[in-house]
């Protein structure tokens, strides 16, 4: 007997501070992520950087998705269906490394985030499960 897809996906909601890129998210963020893919081409990166709002008019995204992009609000972009490997095209175009961009989602300064990583990273203790509080 195969596992129910409903139970499989419901369990993901119990992980603190984490959004799993399910098919639901992939559908919600389809054009957001495809927009990110367009930045793989140098000529598109130039156009995007020259006039971000104008570049976005060609993409079938929600206003929320567009404003989160303009704000570089990566947590919001994840909520709106973005995936980190796609969003990486946006922060790479900005000249940011993964560490620099990822730290913006944690509420920590990049220096504090780097210090945490150098000290062994974030402990899983207390952030495994919302329900179990462990």
């Amino acid at each position: 007997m195969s596992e129910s897809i409903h139970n499989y996906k419901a369990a993901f909601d119990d992980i603190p501070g984490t959004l799993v890129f399910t098919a639901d998210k992939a559908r919600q963020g389809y054009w957001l992520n495809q927009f990110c893919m367009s930045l793989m081409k140098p000529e598109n990166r130039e156009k995007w950087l020259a006039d971000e709002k104008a570049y976005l008019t060609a993409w079938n995204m929600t206003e929320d998705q567009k404003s989160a992009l303009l704000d570089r609000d990566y947590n919001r972009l994840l909520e709106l269906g973005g995936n980190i490997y796609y969003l990486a095209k946006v922060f790479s175009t900005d000249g940011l490394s993964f560490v620099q961009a990822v730290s913006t989602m944690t509420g920590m300064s990049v220096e504090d985030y780097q210090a945490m990583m150098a000290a062994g990273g974030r402990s899983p203790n207390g952030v495994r499960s919302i329900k179990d509080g462990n």
Partner: protein
Amino acid sequence: MAKITAGIATSHVPLIGVGIDQGKQNEPYFQPIFAGYEWTKEWVSRPDNKPDVVVLVYNDHASAFGQEIIPTFAIGCAEEFQSADEGWGPRPVPTIKNHPDLAWHVAESLILDEFDMTIINEMTVDHGLTVPLSAIFGQPSEWPVLIIPIMINVVTYPIPSGDRCFRLGQAIKRAIERFPEDLNVQVWGTGGMSHQLQGPRAGLINQAWDQKFLDDLTENPDRLRQIPHIEYLRETGSEGIELVMWLVMLGALTNPKELHRHYHVPASNTALGHIVLENEK
């Protein structure tokens, strides 16, 4: 006949590629990252150990494929592949040359063995494939091995289960052992170990969990096969799920023996893991 002689697993953190491409191996941050590959570089250069072909299991990180096509299991069958431009220009690495006869044989065999592979004749390959090659072979003018890319979706859920990946490895082993050419073949699993690149919980590292995973590659493979996705996500961070690709390597081996292990935190946002497993002779 072709024979699988060893399995190698390694993280494929982009920063490892940056360290090599920009000649930073001896800088204090990078030195402990690269030191753990020295043993493997020496071991793999010995004639008895050097593979003719590497079956390299990795995932594409929105480089060759966007959301328009999402193959769960794919195999590269073209003559050769070029390094992808991931947004800052392609990595300066040699062309990846395939063994197309073996790749097509593996593709045909897997499909007959009920693994419904997507066959890829045109794609670029990103850091998931090129970083492991650079970590182990350095910067040669040509890669010293032929490479069969096996690409697995570990980005858009549901992704394949760990046990399914293990059984894919078993089917790859059956396919390779039926190929008539005398070839020394290695299977590499890449990605992991614990890391999370997104959200308020980003930066999660679970060294105890990772070390137990490394132990159980030889001590308790059956436990690893049964780890559900939710455990990877809770314990190793959202991107630690890449470890299912190590299980393809594990499935292709028989009673593997650990020859070498390297574990270091941090490499960028990631716990770097690397292991060399010798196959039963």
